[in-house]
């Protein structure tokens, strides 16, 4: 009797469960449908792996930690996967922590957008990548960056790189990708004509004349995309700020300066524009890289980030990186040092200890060298001793002589404005003063918005 009763109860419960299962299932389905539409593909595996990680616990006293890492560079997935596996092994061996890393690598075009949405909705990844020069100031101001100044990796950073990840005297990110650039030149053309990279504007004019006398177009122009003419601004402002006008950016931030102080930058811009290839406004970056690789011009105001594209258009091509002369002061002819992709830690991270371990592991004495070499990044720390590309060596030679400066920190809106302004200037729609006053206006607007 008792057994029967029990069985009945069990059946009832089972039926009830079945019923409630149905409704639960329906709800879950509906929720999954909605969530599936909204969430991006890269994240869809998230919940599962987290559950799996916490479920597999129980072996010994090992702690389980799931680290969320967000890096908008899917082309490096293989390298990061390997590096993360090494890191997990190290944590297991040294601290007895089972680390499972949930690596999210969205397309770089919308990575920044996704990251911002995450941060704004309190769903911050433990570690995320951001652009050092462009994004650190606004992220720092919004309180999304952990202060890393007292971490061991800080001591290993090269002095030339450290300022780019420092804000308000605090180191807030570990740099991955750094750039040292000025303009690119065709080594073969220069060698054939016995030319060397000029150190002053006058010397540059002589080089241009000599190239023209030999029927070679001096400069490649590719102004279809506004960010390419924009490159003149960091080069010119960087050079002038680091020689004769050191407090320009500070004063601009206080609405006390004006770009009319920078009018001298049109000397080099006019020289380049007057001696360039045809139909500049129809040539984009990739087309420009192909044209440059095929020897259409001797110089290109562009950075070595196009190395891969150039070499894929012409694998035997040899090019060098040299500082662009702005005026007749040879000391102002310097390489621009900039940092792009960097890794930061979220202050909201629940696994901060492991996150900090990971950040330090990026510049680990043993592992870091091979990692940076595999990623084809430049050395950023004293632990990096690998052989670099010839064009990186070219630039590093200038850096070692002290002929380099930190990429000046200017608002993104000013950089956008100068790109558009120089396009219109090249098309003959506006004059020099119009470009400069538009820049003043853009910087004032930035100050107003970011009070």
């Amino acid at each position: 009797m008792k057994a029967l009763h029990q069985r009945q109860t069990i059946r009832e419960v089972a039926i009830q469960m079945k019923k409630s299962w149905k409704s639960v299932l329906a709800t879950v389905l509906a929720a999954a449908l909605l969530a599936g539409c909204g969430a991006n593909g890269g994240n869809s595996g998230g919940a599962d792996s987290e559950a799996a990680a916490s479920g597999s616990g129980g072996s010994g006293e090992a702690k389980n930690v799931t680290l969320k890492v967000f890096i908008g560079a899917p082309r490096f997935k293989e390298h990061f996967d390997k590096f993360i596996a090494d890191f997990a092994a190290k944590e297991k061996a040294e601290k007895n922590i089972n680390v499972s890393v949930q690596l999210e690598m969205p397309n770089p075009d919308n990575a920044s957008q996704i990251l911002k949405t995450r941060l704004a909705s309190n769903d911050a990844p433990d570690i995320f990548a951001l652009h050092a020069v462009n994004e650190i100031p606004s992220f720092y101001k919004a309180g999304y960056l952990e202060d890393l100044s007292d971490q061991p990796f800080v001591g290993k950073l090269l002095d030339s790189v450290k300022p780019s990840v420092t804000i308000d005297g605090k180191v807030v990110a570990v740099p991955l990708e750094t750039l040292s650039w000025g303009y690119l030149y065709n080594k073969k053309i220069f060698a054939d004509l016995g030319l060397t990279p000029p150190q002053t504007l006058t010397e540059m004019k002589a080089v241009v004349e000599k190239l023209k006398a030999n029927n070679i177009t001096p400069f490649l122009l590719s102004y279809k995309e506004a960010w390419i003419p924009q490159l003149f601004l960091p080069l010119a402002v960087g050079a002038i700020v680091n020689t004769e006008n050191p407090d320009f950016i500070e004063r601009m931030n206080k609405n006390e300066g004006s770009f009319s102080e920078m009018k001298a930058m049109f000397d080099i811009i006019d020289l380049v524009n007057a001696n360039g290839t045809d139909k500049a406004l129809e040539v984009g970056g990739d087309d420009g890289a192909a044209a440059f690789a095929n020897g259409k011009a001797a110089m290109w105001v562009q950075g070595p980030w196009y190395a891969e594209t150039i070499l894929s258009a012409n694998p035997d091509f040899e090019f060098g990186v040299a500082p662009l002369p702005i005026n007749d002061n040879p000391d102002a002819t310097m390489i621009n040092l900039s940092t792009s992709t960097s890794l930061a830690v979220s202050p909201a991270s629940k696994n901060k200890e492991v996150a900090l371990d990971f950040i330090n592991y990026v510049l680990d004495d043993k592992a870091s060298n091979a990692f940076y070499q595999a990623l084809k990044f430049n050395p950023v720390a004293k632990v990096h001793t690998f052989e670099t590309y010839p064009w990186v060596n070219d630039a590093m030679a200038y850096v070692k002589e002290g002929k380099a400066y930190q990429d000046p920190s200017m608002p993104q809106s000013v950089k956008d404005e100068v790109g558009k302004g120089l396009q219109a200037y090249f098309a003959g729609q506006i004059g020099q003063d119009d470009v400069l006053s538009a820049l003043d206006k853009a910087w004032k607007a930035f100050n107003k918005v970011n009070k």
Partner: protein
Amino acid sequence: MEERGRRFLSSILLYSSADFRRGEIGVPLKRYKKYVSLLMFTAPAFLLYAVFLLIPTLGGMFYSFTDWNGLNKSYHFVGFANFAEALGEDSDFVHSLWFTLKYVVFMVVLQNAIALLLAVLIETRTRSKGFFRTVFFMPNMISIIISSFMWTFVFTQVLPQIAEKTALAFLDQSWIGNPSVSFYSILIVSLWNGVGYMLIIYLAALQGVPQHLKEAAVIDGASPFQRFLHVTVPMITHAITICFFLTLNGAFKVFEVVYGLTGGGPGRSTQVITLNIYEEAFSNNFRYGYASAKSVILFVMILIITFIQISVMKKREVEA
């Protein structure tokens, strides 16, 4: 049709009043039930519509009154300051507004005129009708952004090459680099891509023009042009209304063609409103609130203009 509808309606009334007399279910409840079932049927679509369109739209309207930058956790209400700034001080926005209006005028007229012309010509064919219909509709099946990249290649590489090989010197233009020419380049690509769709609508409408009316006009001695103007056009006014609505709406919201061809450049000379909004929100100072205000302005503009267009054109529609 109308008769059947009336009978149906009266049967419902009878039925419900019978219920009412029996005192089981009141009329209001019955009606309420009807609406519930109607709501249930539309719920799946409405839910998705609300979650992905209605709520974000209302959110955008809300943010248009703030100075939110898309990243900060806090923001302030600024009232109508964003709207005043957009229309008063922002010369780039006003320029993009005029540029868009110019584009809209050209697009609405040309797209409809060309589509109608092609539709009439295709309608006169007998056996090759399907072939031409497919050929002209084909560009519409390619996504706009891809077709604008394709045309970038045509404008920068193919046309100058042709100009070099043949003697057609006028083809060697700075098609997308010169602001006065690039407006027409944008038009060419938009038309190439958009005419096909309108063409299909016009074709369907032309096939619906009753044969007996045309024959009567022929017997009355009307010339082909008169037949077109006085018989065909009035009979396809409903299609014209739809096509004007679609082209007007689409032309105001143009983005991909300009983005793909010129990126709004050189400078801002070919910048349309949507590009200006995009730039404000995602690349300049990340002023989401301000960009939302600009979007609301665009929305109100489209709303008013299409409303006027529909109400004017609806009056002119006739039925056979």
